[in-house]
């Protein structure tokens, strides 16, 4: 049932075996890697390292050597940088998977890294509806606030080289992408105008996760187990992360603004209690508008990967029809 040709999966398994046996203590073999759905811009594979003490559950994240590194979102950092950020987050006790090894060019597996496979749920709809998460759901917004405060507190001098993307920079970047694809959308035009007219005063810049939302958080019945998908990390306005998790697309039908599971007040409370700067809810809302527009532009951009690029999947084609979701959200936000 795997769309990957068997030959390339065999090569991947052989390469993984070499890497894992050489660099993970006690490992003498690997199980066949299984491609996970989700994570559309990069490959994610699940497999076990076999050791005398039992199987060790692992995840491989990589951009294959045959393809360009995923530039779909225009600003993705390399997977080596992503691994470094996850390590920095682990050092300050934030919930992230442990990075076990980073791929080297001579591994011939592309760019990427191997990390531990956490137990838990990332599917947003299950997190919002399954009974096993009922008790923890009301606590998640507070926890998200605490974790974001921790991410934003990582000293900038410790960070690997990252792009700086403040509001002005992102406005210009996404305007450029929108113009490039030449898909005229009056609601986006109105939103670009609105953002331009409401740019916040220059804030203190910090590490920003960039994709901290329901769907990229590994949740178990005790709460957030792992913050995943750091590929959009950058230096920017910390309020961006608080706004992004409120974007309606990431509520997955849930009524509550933070990921469908919590309130902005709890998010802010957790953030401030964990040492974050006082939360400016007006600026969080500004970033929710920016985030909604960005997701809309990304939808049209992914359609372009179907039209002009190599990705001929139905998913890529159909995602263009999701931009209208962001248009109704933008209208509710800027012209209620």
């Amino acid at each position, binding site marked *: *049932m795997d*769309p990957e040709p068997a030959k390339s999966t065999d090569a991947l398994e052989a390469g993984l075996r070499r890497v894992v046996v050489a660099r993970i203590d006690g490992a003498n073999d690997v199980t066949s890697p299984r491609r996970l759905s989700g994570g559309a811009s990069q490959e994610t594979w699940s497999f076990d390292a076999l050791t005398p003490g039992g199987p060790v559950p692992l995840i491989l994240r990589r951009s294959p050597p045959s393809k360009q590194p995923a530039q779909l979102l225009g600003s993705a950092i390399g997977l080596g940088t992503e691994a470094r950020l996850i390590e920095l987050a682990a050092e300050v006790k934030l919930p992230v998977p442990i990075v076990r090894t980073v791929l080297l060019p001579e591994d011939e597996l592309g760019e990427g890294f191997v990390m531990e496979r956490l137990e838990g749920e990332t599917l947003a709809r299950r997190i919002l509806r399954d009974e096993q998460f009922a008790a923890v759901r009301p606590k998640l917004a507070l926890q998200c606030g605490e974790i974001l405060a921790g991410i934003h507190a990582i000293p900038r001098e410790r960070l690997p080289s990252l792009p700086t993307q403040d509001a002005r920079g992102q406005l210009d970047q996404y305007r450029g992408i929108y113009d490039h694809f030449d898909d005229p959308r009056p609601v986006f035009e109105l939103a670009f105008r*609105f953002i331009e007219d409401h740019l916040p005063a220059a804030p203190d810049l910090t590490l920003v996760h960039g994709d901290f939302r329901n769907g990229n958080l590994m949740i178990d019945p005790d709460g957030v187990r792992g913050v995943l998908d750091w590929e959009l990390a950058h230096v920017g306005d910390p309020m961006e992360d608080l706004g992004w998790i409120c974007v309606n697309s990431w509520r997955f039908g849930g009524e509550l603004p933070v990921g469908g599971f919590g309130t902005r007040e709890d998010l802010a409370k957790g953030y401030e209690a964990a040492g974050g700067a006082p939360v400016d809810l007006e600026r969080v809302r500004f970033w929710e508008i920016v985030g909604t527009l960005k997701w809309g532009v990304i939808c049209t951009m992914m359609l372009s990967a179907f039209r002009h690029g190599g990705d001929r*999947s139905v*998913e890529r084609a159909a995602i263009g029809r999701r931009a*209208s*979701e962001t248009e109704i959200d933008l209208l509710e936000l800027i012209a209620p």
Partner: protein
Amino acid sequence: MYDPPNLTELVTAVREFLEDQALPQLEGRTAFHARVAANALAIVERQLALGPEAEAAERTRLCDLLGRTDRDADLESLTRDLCRRIRDGELGIDSPGLTEHLRLTTLDKLAVDQPRYSGYRRATHSRS
């Protein structure tokens, strides 16, 4: 001029085949993509049913909003004209009729693209 079945009937037949026969036999990513494919066909069915009337209404609103007399102008050129005027600051949030037009157009699109979307349900509920 073309013989039956009509387009809607053909697309419906393919969607039902995917949902009722193919999907139960698939798993993993292939099942996921088959579900996406069935949803895409449902969009086609809804657009075939709702599209002509929605596009005619959109064209009328755009001509009024833009003061155009060429009432048969194509939708894309009208939309480009509107985009340019918003970008140039000639039309904005406070312009009479603009946000109402955008709201109606967006709701018509969502009735085809994703009628179950929370933002669509909220917007139609709060205004009906």
